């Protein structure tokens, strides 16, 4: 009953908008070749089940791999950047630069460097999703409670001890914030990579677009969003488990 109560508020606008769209397209107010009726999208999913399922699996794998890479590399990079002010000042601007380069411009470059195939899609997902991980992890590490830092200093803790016993665990909530953002971005990066490098839901979108099958385009896009949502939910779950005992906000 409680779960139903939680789902009801967001469900209502969804049902309302879907019904409105259906009526508008059926009534001819919106042209079906510009925006498909929700029923058409549903039928497209139903009618292309195996193809979409396989594409979704492929995109999921690439997005997850890219995300895993950016999690590990991003956290490691942030730990390195946190080690000294000089290092931060020298290298952080490049991390920011990484963020601002539009992926659609570098995706063709990625294909040239890594070739056609899943490795390029993973690279694309990685490039797009790494910056929030670095930024949030670094921010978390640098914003440790000064009193606790004093306490560690008082008892003669080495910088390494302070990093691993204090600053890193204290940064976990913020790291998870970064991961939540990175998850969605990894899916986007994978799809863009697939536009250029082939395969997965990106390819389904590209082909369906050429064939003017706008219902299938929306079907693939919807599945991509669901993928992003699923990844987001997974991060939340893991975050809830890991922070269960200690963060007040996680308990509510």
């Amino acid at each position, binding site marked *: 009953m409680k779960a139903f109560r939680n789902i009801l508020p967001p469900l209502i606008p969804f049902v309302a908008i879907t019904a409105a769209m259906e009526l508008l397209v059926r009534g001819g107010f919106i042209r079906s070749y510009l925006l498909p009726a929700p029923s058409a999208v549903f039928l497209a999913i139903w009618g292309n089940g195996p193809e979409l399922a396989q594409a979704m699996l492929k995109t999921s794998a690439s997005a997850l791999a890219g995300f895993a890479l950016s999690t590990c590399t991003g956290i490691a990079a942030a730990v390195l950047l946190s080690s000294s002010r000089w290092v931060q000042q020298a290298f952080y601007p490049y991390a920011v630069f990484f963020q601002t380069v539009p992926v659609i411009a570098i995706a063709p470059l990625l294909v040239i460097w890594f070739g056609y195939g899943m490795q390029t899609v993973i690279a694309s997902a990685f490039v797009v999703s790494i910056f929030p991980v670095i930024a949030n992890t670094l921010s978390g590490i640098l914003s440790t409670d000064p009193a*606790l830092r004093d306490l560690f*200093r008082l008892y003669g803790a080495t910088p390494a001890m302070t990093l691993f016993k204090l600053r890193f665990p204290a940064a976990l909530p913020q790291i998870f914030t970064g991961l939540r953002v990175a998850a969605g971005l990894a899916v986007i990066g994978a799809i863009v990579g697939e536009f250029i490098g082939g395969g997965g839901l990106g390819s389904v979108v590209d082909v369906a677009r050429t064939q003017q099958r706008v219902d299938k385009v929306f079907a693939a896009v919807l599945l991509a969003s669901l993928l992003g949502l699923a990844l987001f939910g997974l991060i939340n779950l893991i975050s809830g488990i890991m922070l269960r005992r*200690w963060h007040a906000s996680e308990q509510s």
Partner: protein
Amino acid sequence: MSTGVALRLEGVRRVFEDSLHNQFAVIAGMDIRIEAGEFLALLGPSGCGKSTLLRMIARLDQPDGGRIVREPEGDRAQTAFVFQDAHLLPWRNVVDNAALPLELMGVAKPERREKALAALGQVNLLEAVDRYPAQLSGGMRMRVSLARALVTEPRLLLLDEPFAALDEITRFHLDVQLRELWRSRRMTVIFVTHSISEAAFLANRAVVMSRRGGAIKLDRIIELPEERTNELRADPRLGQEMKLLLGAIEE
């Protein structure tokens, strides 16, 4: 027999810069001697430099002039600091929090657990050793912080308004507990507080600092019995001491 250290502050000076880059001396040359095993309360209005002084004694900050000498000079284990908030590590349980100083000093796990449990016993917190900070009340968290401070058997215990954020009843109880801990160990305690009644209740000696510059307006031995219970709260003698301290602060 005291286990505490004695402190000698000679011409201690600390200068800060404000937002307009004007320099001003928070402490402009303080001289004071603190005997081993004294329980000293440090009083004064906000901004008078008492926390700054405490940090310098803890060697978390350095004075800009003068010096602070410890007798005897000792190692890290010697000093403990209790902050205004408990500042526990939320991802560790109570006993692991209490054992933290020993962990940082490289003590082996079984030994430090034993000592942590002992310290927690002293603050009457043994029933909560496996709980996490988020599950504790404010008062319990402060007791963990105290246990953490005691776990290294410090010879110098520094407290910066530790009970200020707690309700009065809890405060009263913790005051008594702290006093008893001091009586059994006789380490040197310096207790910074805003509360005149707390200063009078807890300390053997009260020092009142001036509003600016860290000058000492009053340095008085508190004339109250050695053993202090909460019954003393209603005792007129406490009121007398408080009156004297208040007078020094207000002038």
